């Protein structure tokens, strides 16, 4: 039996949105030397079954979406990061030592349903 696709506008589909993290907003500018902030982005949007294949989805998301169509108690696939990139941070610790550290998975580059 064909599954009815819910009406979804393109704007509400899963994709990455801009989010600039300003360390001053967190009060962290007092100890983070650089950067002052960074474009971290975030993922948001719907993952309707009809669009699952075209939304950079995993096979698992496709199967979950299919099962959700059969049994609504099974949650829909959700919009999540599928590609992340690192940043470097320069900061001072409690002993006033200057530290440069690289952190993986800090910036969302791409989103998809998973």
């Amino acid at each position, binding site marked *: 039996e064909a599954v009815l696709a819910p009406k979804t506008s393109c704007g509400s589909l899963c994709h990455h949105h801009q989010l600039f993290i300003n360390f001053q907003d967190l009060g962290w500018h007092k*100890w983070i030397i650089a950067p002052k902030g960074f474009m971290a982005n975030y993922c948001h949007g719907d993952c309707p079954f009809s669009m699952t294949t075209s939304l950079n989805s995993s096979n698992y998301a496709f199967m979950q979406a299919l099962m959700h169509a059969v049994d609504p108690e099974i949650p829909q696939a959700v919009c999540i990061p599928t590609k992340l990139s690192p940043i470097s941070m320069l900061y*001072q610790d409690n002993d006033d030592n200057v530290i440069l550290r690289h952190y993986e998975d800090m910036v969302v580059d791409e989103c998809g349903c998973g």
Partner: protein
Amino acid sequence: FQFQEHVFLQFLGLDKVPSPQKFQPVPSVLKKIFRDQEAAATSGDSQDLCYIKDLGTRGNILRLLLDQGLFLYSEKLPQASSCLQKQLYFNLSAIQDKEQLTMAQLGLDLGPNTYYKQGPELELALSLVQEPHVWGQSIPKPGKMLVLQSVPWPQGVVHFNLLDVAKDWNSNPQKNLGLLLEILVKGTRDWGVNFQLQDTCARLRQSLHASLLVVSLNPEQCHPSSRRRR
């Protein structure tokens, strides 16, 4: 928010929110590495964040530890050849157990070159401190000699590899009693230059700045797949 901030700070390797009294100057080597990483990220170049190209070593955490040691003053008259004595102490407690040390470089800034252009030749002696410093003792008991070398012109910053020492301190913190730095003057027979010598030593004492650049690798954040191919 407090709870979540605490969790994230742990991820950063911090127990609590740091509250530095003043911002320390960022050493040029850290500035350069940071700028290179930012440039690579902006241009979209793939980069191995667990390899520090500028230093030629593996690692994803670079710490510049400040010297917390004191200048040593002897109650007895100093030996004619001794210009400066200082205990160097670096607190390694911020390094977590899971981190692997890959580099520890002592940097001794002996001041601008111009100070010594016409001054006497110096000799630098660096040894481990063997026993804790006790009150009333003029200098801590020196142990194994690590470095004994002439300091030729031009001067500026001189570097020494202390990786083995730092690894030992990191695995046995009670062994970290610091280092004893002594700067000696070579060829002090000519007492005519004594006034100049005192001037040189006084300036050296003012300008001396020691730091330990420690690079470590957190295996949880550096997976084998991201290793560089040889």
